[in-house]
């Protein structure tokens, strides 16, 4: 028996410290294994065959040629695939019939002894189709556009306070503009990969996802298995940004193929396949109408958003929802319309709703500032609400104004000349712009187990996922603080559904939700240790926590993180190229657990926002009905040379109403507002408004 607690030590809390990533050594040495990297004995490679039509049905599959090729063992298609039960996601009911719902949908998996053989077999697979005419063009005036009942995750699709039309008619200043954002693809660097293995009726998968227990649940429902029969492991995940937020086709295909063959099967998507099979950000068209008095005080805000979904799953992006909480106005209306097309289902991509929605709202606010001749920072401060404008509920904390002031100070905003298109440096027109950021700070139930071992160390087990966020490190710090021990006495294990149900790494809710369960279990364990006078019995001690009731009992307040972003741009007047020499982000997001990983994550969000502003755009090929630029040569994400100086900081924020650690998530807020700040800066540089993303050179000079 070892004494575990040493009450004499006064330790400095680890919370807030910039501790090195716990998995950094494993990642810089190549030791960290990702899901497609577990070699299992007798493993077979699966290669996905995709439909070349956007709508229709399979008329015949003739696998003979493929089956005669060296190394090919089987072809999995709808005729021999295991039957699946509906898990509430039409995208996962794969190979269950002859219908094709979108181009790029999986129609078969060729199974062979090597990757090369599987790929060659897939290329040779003879499938014929009866194509029907498809409808893939997203437009606001489409007759099938409808009003969904709810938008994600479960907001009413419309809201209305006061009389917006009357207020707009009476307003001294009115802005009425339409903004458009394109489809974008998440493109985590690690393609989706699953290695699946059945042992009798028990399924083990190594899968690249943002939440092993969510994927476990989907597999249980699809294959009608109890939780005890399915284990999902995802120790290291190479990014997700929403694309791995729930079970996606590879885990289902690999599990079916492994069932068929009775051998372990690995299915890894190619980069090209990812553009059809794992989701993307919906394109949006948004009409924003603002009415104000001459000083810029809002009298009305009207935000109407159009987006698309597929015909197999209703996915209703919450594009206009941020307008319900952002600025004070007596008359406030938001609405959403949705268009089902013969396309793959859009899914979450970093800050779904807020990222495209903020482009429209924050651009419109800049236009209003221009129309009223008010400084854009001051305009936002003038419209700062005391309560959430739409619901009248209080905010748990709201430090937007502090972020605006601090950002302006750091940027040197106060000396700015508001006039557009007057700063030229050689061939460059210079400008600056800003926008506000926000993202909800929610919690979801999670479970956790903490074990005190007899050697004085602790093992924390939680089905958390570290997709690059630093959650593994942050949670270890939180556990060590809760247990009042040094970091090296805590071993945190994550990414294994056997550890019990937990929230996914998504919605900026991962670390916040998990931390609550970790703290609760650690406190319980400390209580048990006290009862043992601080000594761990030979068999160890175990505490379990479930935060279901705690989360349900949270007060009815509005919880959001806030931020302000300031950018400087240089626009080449001859080519239309936009460069962004300097970006500054200031955030108010509760307690920052790890200063080092938080800074990296916020910068990463702003860089994705830079890509959204200037580069990212998935182009629909109307003839074939698929995204045309489906690789990293055609779909441009920001590269090292696109990024110059980026500084982030945060203000101290104490919020006792989020969770016991006072955490608000930071995974998404970094991308919210970036595109608007850049578009506003391009206006300041050139005098031309950019209401359509991305801000391509042709759009700048046209």
């Amino acid at each position, binding site marked *: 028996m070892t004494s575990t607690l040493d009450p004499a030590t006064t330790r400095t809390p680890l919370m807030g410290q910039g501790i090195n990533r716990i998995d950094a050594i494993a990642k810089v040495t190549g030791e960290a294994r990702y899901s497609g990297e577990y070699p299992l004995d007798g493993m077979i490679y699966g290669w996905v065959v995709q439909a070349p039509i956007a709508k229709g049905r399979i008329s015949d599959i003739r696998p003979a040629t493929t089956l005669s090729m060296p190394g090919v063992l089987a072809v999995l298609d709808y005729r021999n695939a295991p039957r699946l039960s509906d898990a509430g996601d039409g995208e996962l009911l794969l190979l269950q019939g002859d219908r094709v719902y979108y181009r790029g949908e999986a129609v078969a998996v060729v199974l062979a002894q090597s990757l090369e053989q599987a790929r060659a077999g897939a290329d040779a697979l003879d499938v014929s189709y009866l194509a029907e005419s498809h409808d893939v063009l997203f437009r606001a005036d489409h007759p099938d556009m409808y009003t969904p009942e709810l938008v994600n995750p479960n907001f009413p699709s419309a809201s209305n306070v006061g009389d917006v039309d009357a207020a707009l008619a009476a307003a001294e200043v009115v802005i009425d503009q339409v903004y458009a954002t394109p489809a974008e693809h998440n493109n985590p660097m690690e393609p989706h990969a699953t290695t699946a293995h059945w042992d009798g009726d028990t399924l083990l998968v190594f899968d690249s996802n943002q939440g092993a227990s969510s994927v476990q649940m989907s597999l249980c429902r699809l294959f009608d298995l109890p939780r005890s029969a399915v284990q999902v492991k995802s120790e290291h995940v190479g990014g997700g940004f929403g694309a791995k937020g729930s079970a996606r086709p590879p885990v289902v295909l690999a599990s079916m193929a492994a069932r068929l063959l009775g051998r372990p099967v690995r299915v890894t998507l190619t980069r090209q396949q990812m553009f059809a099979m794992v989701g993307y950000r919906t394109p949006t068209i948004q009409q924003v109408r603002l009415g104000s008095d001459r000083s810029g005080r809002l009298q009305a805000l009207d935000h109407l958003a159009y987006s698309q979904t597929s015909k197999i799953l209703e996915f209703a992006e919450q594009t206009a929802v941020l307008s319900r909480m952002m600025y004070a106005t007596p008359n406030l209306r938001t609405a959403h319309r949705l268009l089902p097309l013969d396309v793959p289902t859009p899914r979450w991509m970093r800050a779904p709703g807020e990222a495209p929605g903020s482009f429209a709202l924050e651009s419109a606010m800049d236009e209003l500032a221009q129309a009223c001749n008010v400084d854009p920072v001051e305009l936002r401060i003038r419209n700062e609400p005391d309560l959430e404008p739409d619901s009248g509920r209080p905010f748990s904390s709201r430090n937007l104004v502090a972020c605006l002031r601090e950002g302006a100070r750091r940027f040197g905003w106060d000396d700015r000349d508001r006039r557009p298109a007057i700063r030229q440096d050689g061939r460059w027109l210079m400008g600056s712009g800003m926008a506000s950021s926000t993202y909800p700070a929610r919690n979801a139930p999670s479970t956790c187990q903490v074990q005190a071992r007899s050697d004085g160390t602790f093992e924390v087990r939680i089905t958390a996922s570290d997709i*690059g966020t630093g959650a593994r490190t942050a949670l270890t710090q939180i556990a060590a603080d809760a247990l009042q021990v040094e970091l090296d006495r805590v071993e945190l294990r994550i990414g294994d559904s056997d550890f019990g149900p937990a929230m996914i790494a998504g919605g900026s809710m991962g670390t916040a939700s998990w931390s609550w369960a970790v703290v609760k279990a650690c406190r319980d364990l400390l209580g048990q240790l006290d009862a043992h006078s601080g000594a761990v019995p030979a068999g160890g001690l175990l505490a379990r926590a479930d935060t279901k009731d705690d989360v349900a009992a949270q007060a009815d307040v509005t919880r959001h993180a806030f931020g302000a972003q300031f950018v400087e741009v240089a626009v080449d007047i001859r080519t239309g190229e936009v460069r962004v020499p300097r970006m500054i982000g200031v955030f108010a997001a509760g307690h920052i657990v790890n200063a080092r990983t938080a800074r990296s994550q916020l910068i990463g969000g702003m860089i994705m926002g830079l890509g959204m502003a200037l580069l990212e755009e998935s182009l629909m090929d109307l003839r074939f009905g698929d995204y045309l630029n489906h690789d990293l040569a055609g779909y441009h994400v920001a590269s090292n040379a696109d990024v110059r100086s980026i500084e982030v900081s945060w203000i101290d924020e104490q919020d006792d109403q989020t969770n016991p650690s006072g955490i608000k998530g930071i995974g998404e807020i970094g991308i919210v507002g970036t595109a608007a700040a850049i578009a506003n800066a391009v206006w300041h540089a050139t005098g031309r408004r950019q209401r359509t993303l991305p801000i391509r050179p042709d759009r700048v000079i046209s």
Partner: protein
Amino acid sequence: MTRSSLSSSFTVTVNGEPQLLDLDNRTTLLDALREHLDLTGAKKGCDHGQCGACTVLLDGRRVNSCLVLAVAAQGRSVTTIEGLGTADRLHPVQQAFIDHDGLQCGYCTPGQICSAVSALDEVDRGWPSAATADVGAEKITLDDSEIRERMSGNLCRCGAYVNILAAINAVAQ
């Protein structure tokens, strides 16, 4: 030495050890490392030479190993991230990536590190880049724009670029 029209056996030196391989001729160097030698440090982000995740050193120079057929590496010497340094003997660039948090999900990281090691060597040799002001100069001044330019073949979707730049600057000092 050709064994049949479909496969070949040949030797490649990997991280200092000669490896006798018997592979399908279609196998890329990247797949040879990952699937046949269990060296999964080199990552596959695109398989088309568009992301840099698969970067390794071939006879000391960086290559996208997804674009090299394994047979074409016959008789040559490959260094992967596993050969660059290990947990107890980290390469200075690996250490700098840790110190400056030049990684998030870590998937692009081995490629970034191999690329950085080679880029620094290219600068030492006086090879210019698109960012070099005077391509005739004997010595390259390694400034931020040189590093960014030379590292732009390695995409990082997590956006660790600011820290990658800091890490490489720290090694170059």
